C-alpha cells in the first residue's frame, strides 16, 4: 500500500464515513458487522466517541493487542524492582517481554533489583502432563538461595497454568509460611483470559489489594506520615517518565511516598494506603486499585496529565486543589519556573510543526493524553484509537478530541493502513509492530509506547524531548528521498498493489 499524495480539502466527517464503508467492504459480512461497531467519527457534544470497545478481537485480522500476562507481568507487576517475577509456564512469554518496556529503575540488578531479568519455570512437556506445582516449590527455594535479597516473589501465570489445574495459590501460601511470611503473590493472568492486556491490569491490581494491602491491614505506617503525602499511580517510568513527573510534585511541596509501578518497590506499595492523595496517570491500568483505596481507606484520587505544558499546568492546579494554600502557591511557583523553558521549546519547534496532522493508535492513556502536547506545538490529532480501552476511556477522550476526529477501536492492520493511506497524516504515533509499515509508506512515525527508545516525555523536562523528537521524525531529510526520481509520482512497481 502506498500514500495518495493528492490533498483534497474535504469534510472530514463525510470522508470518514466513506472511508469506513470502504474498509468494511473488504471484510466478510459477519466480520464487517462486528468491526463496524468499532469505527466511527467523534461528534461534538456526544458523551463518548460512538464506538464499542473492550470486546473480543476478531480472529485472523492482525489485531495489535496483547494478552492478560502482558498486562500483569509486562505492565503492572514487572517494574516492581525488588521482587522477583516468575514467568510461570513455557519460556517464550518471559523472553519476548524481557527488558523491552524500558521501565527505568535504580538498583543493583541481580542482587537487590530484578526488573531486567527473565525468571521462568521454562515448562517442559512433563510439567504440562504432571503439573508444575512441584517445580514451582523448587523454583522458589532456588530464588531464596540465589537471590537472598529479594523482597518478594510474584507468580505470573502463562496460558497453560489455568488449563492444567495447577494450584499456584496453595504453593504461594505454603512457601510464604515456610519463609516466615514473605510476600508471595500468585497472579492468574493467563494470556487467554479477557480480550486484551486490560484484564491483566485488573487482575494484577486485585492481587496487590489481596496480597499486599490485606497483609498489612491494621499495621501502622512504616514511615512518618505528613500532610502532603501523595502516591504516583499508573506511571511505568518508561524512559524515566515518573522521575520527570515526581520532580514537579516535589517542587510544588508534595511528598511522593510511592511510585506505581515504575522504579517502584514493595515498601512503596505498602506505604500507599497511608498517603493523602493518589495521583493517577494511567487510568486504564490502575483505576481499579485507586477506587479500592478510595472505598477502603478513604484516599481520594485525581487523574492528571503530564504531557505538554497546557495539560501539565492544568494538572498541577487540579492536584493542588486537594491541598492547602501552601501547595497551591507551590503549583503556581512551579508553573512560573518552567514557563520560560516551555516558551523557548515552543518558539523553537512550533514553527516547524504547526499545522501538521497526527494519527495515533496506542494503549492505556496515550490515545487521549498526548493530544494536548501535540496541540501545544500547533499540531492536530485527526485520528485516534485504543488498543484495549473501555467505554470510560472513550468518554474521557471527548474532552480532548475535535469534532470530526476519526476513531478506531482495536484497529486491525488492514484498517490502519487504509486509514493512513487516505487521511494522509504527517505523523503516525503507534507501536513497534506498526512503525516500519508506515515508514515504508513514507510516513514519519514515532513509537508512542517506548518513546522510540527516547524519553522521558512526561513533565516539563520531558516535553522538551517530546518536541525535539516529533520535529526529528517529521522534518527528517529522509522523507524527501522515498520517491525514486526516475519513477513517475504515484507509480507503483509492477505487481505491487498500490
Amino acid at each position, binding site marked *: 500500500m502506498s500514500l495518495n499524495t493528492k490533498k483534497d480539502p474535504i469534510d472530514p466527517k463525510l470522508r470518514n464515513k466513506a472511508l469506513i464503508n470502504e474498509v468494511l467492504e473488504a471484510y466478510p459480512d459477519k466480520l464487517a458487522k462486528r468491526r463496524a461497531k468499532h469505527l466511527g467519527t467523534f461528534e461534538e457534544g456526544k458523551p463518548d466517541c460512538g464506538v464499542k470497545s473492550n470486546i473480543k478481537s476478531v480472529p485472523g485480522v492482525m489485531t495489535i*493487542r496483547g*494478552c492478560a500476562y502482558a498486562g500483569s507481568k509486562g505492565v503492572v507487576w514487572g517494574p516492581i524492582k525488588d521482587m522477583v517475577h516468575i514467568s510461570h509456564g513455557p519460556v517464550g512469554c518471559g*523472553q519476548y517481554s524481557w*527488558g523491552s518496556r524500558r521501565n527505568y529503575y535504580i538498583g543493583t540488578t541481580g542482587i537487590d533489583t530484578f526488573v531486567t*531479568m527473565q525468571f521462568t519455570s*521454562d515448562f517442559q512437556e512433563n510439567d504440562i502432563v504432571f503439573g508444575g506445582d512441584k517445580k514451582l516449590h523448587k*523454583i522458589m527455594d532456588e530464588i531464596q538461595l540465589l537471590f537472598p*535479597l529479594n523482597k518478594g516473589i510474584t507468580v505470573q501465570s502463562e496460558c497453560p497454568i489455568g488449563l492444567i489445574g495447577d494450584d499456584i495459590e496453595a504453593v504461594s501460601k505454603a512457601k510464604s509460611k515456610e519463609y516466615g511470611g514473605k510476600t508471595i503473590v500468585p497472579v492468574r493472568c493467563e494470556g487467554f483470559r479477557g480480550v486484551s492486556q486490560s484484564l491483566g491490569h485488573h487482575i494484577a491490581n486485585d492481587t496487590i489489594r489481596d496480597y499486599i494491602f490485606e497483609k498489612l491491614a491494621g499495621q501502622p505506617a512504616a514511615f512518618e506520615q505528613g500532610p502532603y503525602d501523595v502516591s504516583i499511580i499508573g506511571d511505568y517510568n518508561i524512559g524515566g517518565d515518573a522521575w520527570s513527573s515526581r520532580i514537579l510534585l516535589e517542587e510544588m511541596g508534595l511528598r511522593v511516598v510511592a511510585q506505581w509501578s515504575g522504579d517502584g518497590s514493595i515498601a512503596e506499595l505498602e506505604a500507599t494506603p497511608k498517603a493523602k492523595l493518589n495521583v493517577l496517570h494511567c487510568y486504564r491500568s490502575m483505576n481499579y486499585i485507586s477506587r479500592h483505596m478510595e472505598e477502603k481507606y478513604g484516599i481520594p484520587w485525581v487523574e492528571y496529565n503530564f504531557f505538554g505544558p497546557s495539560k501539565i499546568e492544568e494538572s498541577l492546579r487540579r492536584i493542588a486543589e486537594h491541598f492547602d494554600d501552601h501547595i497551591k502557591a507551590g503549583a503556581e511557583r512551579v508553573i512560573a519556573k518552567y514557563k520560560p523553558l516551555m516558551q523557548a521549546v515552543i518558539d*523553537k519547534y512550533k514553527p516547524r510543526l504547526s499545522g501538521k496532522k497526527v494519527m495515533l493508535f496506542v494503549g492505556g492513556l496515550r490515545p487521549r493524553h498526548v493530544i494536548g502536547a501535540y496541540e501545544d506545538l500547533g499540531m492536530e490529532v485527526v485520528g485516534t484509537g485504543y488498543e484495549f480501552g473501555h467505554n470510560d476511556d472513550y468518554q474521557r477522550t471527548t474532552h480532548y478530541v475535535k469534532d470530526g476526529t476519526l476513531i478506531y477501536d482495536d484497529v486491525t492492520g488492514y484498517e490502519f493502513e487504509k486509514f493512513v493511506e487516505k487521511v494522509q497524516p504527517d505523523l503516525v504515533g503507534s507501536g513497534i509492530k506498526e512503525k516500519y509499515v508506515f515508514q515504508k509508506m513514507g510516513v514519519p512515525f514515532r513509537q508512542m509506547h517506548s518513546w522510540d527508545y527516547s524519553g522521558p516525555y512526561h513533565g516539563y523536562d520531558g516535553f522538551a524531548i517530546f518536541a*525535539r523528537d516529533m520535529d526529528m521524525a517529521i522534518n527528517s531529510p529522509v522523507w524527501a528521498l522515498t520517491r525514486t526520481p526516475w519513477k513517475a509520482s504515484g507509480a507503483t512497481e509492477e505487481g505491487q498493489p498500490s
Partner: protein
Amino acid sequence: MTQSADKVLDHFDLFRQPEYKEMLENKRKNFENPLPAEEIERVREWTKTADYREKNFAREGLTVNPAKACQPLGAVFAALGFEGTLPFVHGSQGCVAYYRSHFSRHFKEPTSCVSSSMTEDAAVFGGLNNMVDGLANSYALYKPKMIAVSTTCMAEVIGDDLNAFIKTSKEKGSVPQEFDVPFAHTPAFVGSHVTGYDNVMKGILDHFWNGKAGTAPKLERAPNDKINFIGGFDGYTVGNLREIKRIFNLMQVEHTILGDTSDVWDTPTDGHFRMYDGGTTLDEAANAVHAKATISMQQYCTEKTLNLVAAQGQEVVSFNHPVGVAATDRFLMEIARLSGKQIPDELTRERGRLVDAIADSSSHIHGKKFAIYGDPDLCLGLAGFLLELGAEPTHVLATNGNKEWALRVHALLDSSPFGKNCHVYAGKDLWHMRSLLFTEPVDFLIGNTYGKYLERDTGTPLIRIGFPVFDRHHHHRYPVWGYQGGMNVLVRILDKIFDEIDRNSNTPAKNDFSFDIIR
C-alpha cells in the same frame, strides 16, 4: 533546572543532573526501605565466588535469563520464507503480538502474522470457530497465496486438532478447497524456536509433497539436478541468504532456497508497504521434491525436515552454521560434489582473501579466550572459527543444546590444541554464564543483545553475534556465511579487540604509552 530548548537533554544526561540525583537518593533513602549498602555489596561479591557458582549450577527448577525462545517464534520465521504466505498462529493472541514485536526489534522491519485470538470460551469449547472465522478473515483481508498454521501452547494444552480444523474450515468455505493451508503443531513447552522452525518447514514441505493433507495426489519424485538449501532460524538471514544465492550462482548450480526470508525482512522504503515480498514460490516448494539433494545450514533447525527429505530419496547434507575458512571449504566442496560443478576462481580468490585477512590479524586474536552462547548450530560454527583463528572458545553454552550437541562440541574442541581447556554447557542459561565469567574469566564474550547484562556485570567485552540483536542496527544485512561472511565476523571480533586495547590504554600519563597509532 538544566533542561533547555537549545540543548535538549534526554534520559542519558537528564537524570544525571544534581536535582534528579538528589531526588532519587531521597526516594531510595526515605521510601524504598533499602538494604544497607554493605549488605548489597556482600551479596554482590558472593555471587562472584565458586561457592555461588556451585549453588547456581545445582539449580533444577529455575531458569534465569535463558538464551532461547519458544517453538512458535521459529514457526513464524519458517512460514515467512514462502511467497505470499501469512503465518497464522492458532491460540492466544498476545503471543503473536510478541513474535511480531520480537522480529521487528531485531530486523527493524514489519512482520505480518495473525492469530486466531482464542479466549476463555475457546479454552472450554476448543478453538474450531476461531479457526473457521480466522481463516476466512485472513483470506479476505490480506489476500495471501498460502496460510501456514502453527500453534501456541494454549491450543496444544487443550488438544486442538489442526488437520481436522482446517478441513472443517474449508468445508465451511473459509478458504477455497484447493487453497494451501499447511500446518504444524508447535507446542511451546517442547524444544525451542529452532524446533518450531523445523516443524513448520517440515509441515510445509510435507503439505506440498505428500498430498496436501489428503486433498491431492502425492507428488511423484522425478529427480533433477537441483539442490535445495535450507538456512534455518538465522538472525542474519537477509545477508546470509543473498550471499548463499550469490555462491550458488557463481558455481552455476541450480538451486532452490527453501524458506527465503531475505526479501520479506528487507523491503525498501519507497512509499509502498509490501506485506509480502520475495520468498520461495509455492511451485518451487512443491518442485523441491525432485531435487537431487538438500543442504541444511543448521542441523538442529532441520532434524525432522531432513528426515522427511531423505524419505523422498534425496541425499541430505547438514552443517552446523559454518563460519570461517575450513567450514566454508567443506560447504563449497559439498556443493561441488553434489552438483558435479567446479568451485570457480572467484570463490577461490575470496577464500585467499579471508586467509590473507586472518594472517594479517591473527596475532591480535591468537590465544585470546572467548565465551560463546547462542543456538546450538551457531555455537558450533563460531567455536570452529575461533579455533581456526588460534583463539580458545573457553565456554560454549546453548540453553537449547542437548547432550548429543554437547558431545559434538567436545569432539570439535578435541580436534584442536586450542580447544584443550575449553568446556561445553548444554541446557544452561545466562545466569550460569555469569558464574562462569566470574570464576573462569575470558577476554571476550560472543552472544546476542542480552549479553550486555553480562558485559555490565562481569566486565567481559561483548561481541554481538546471534539473535536477537536489538541494540545495534543493520547487522542482519551482512552475511556471516561464505568467505565474505567470515570476513565480516573477523572484522567484528577485531574491532572489539582494538577498541578494548584503546580503551585500556588511553589514560594520559598513566598508560597511554601503548595508545598506538598503528596496530
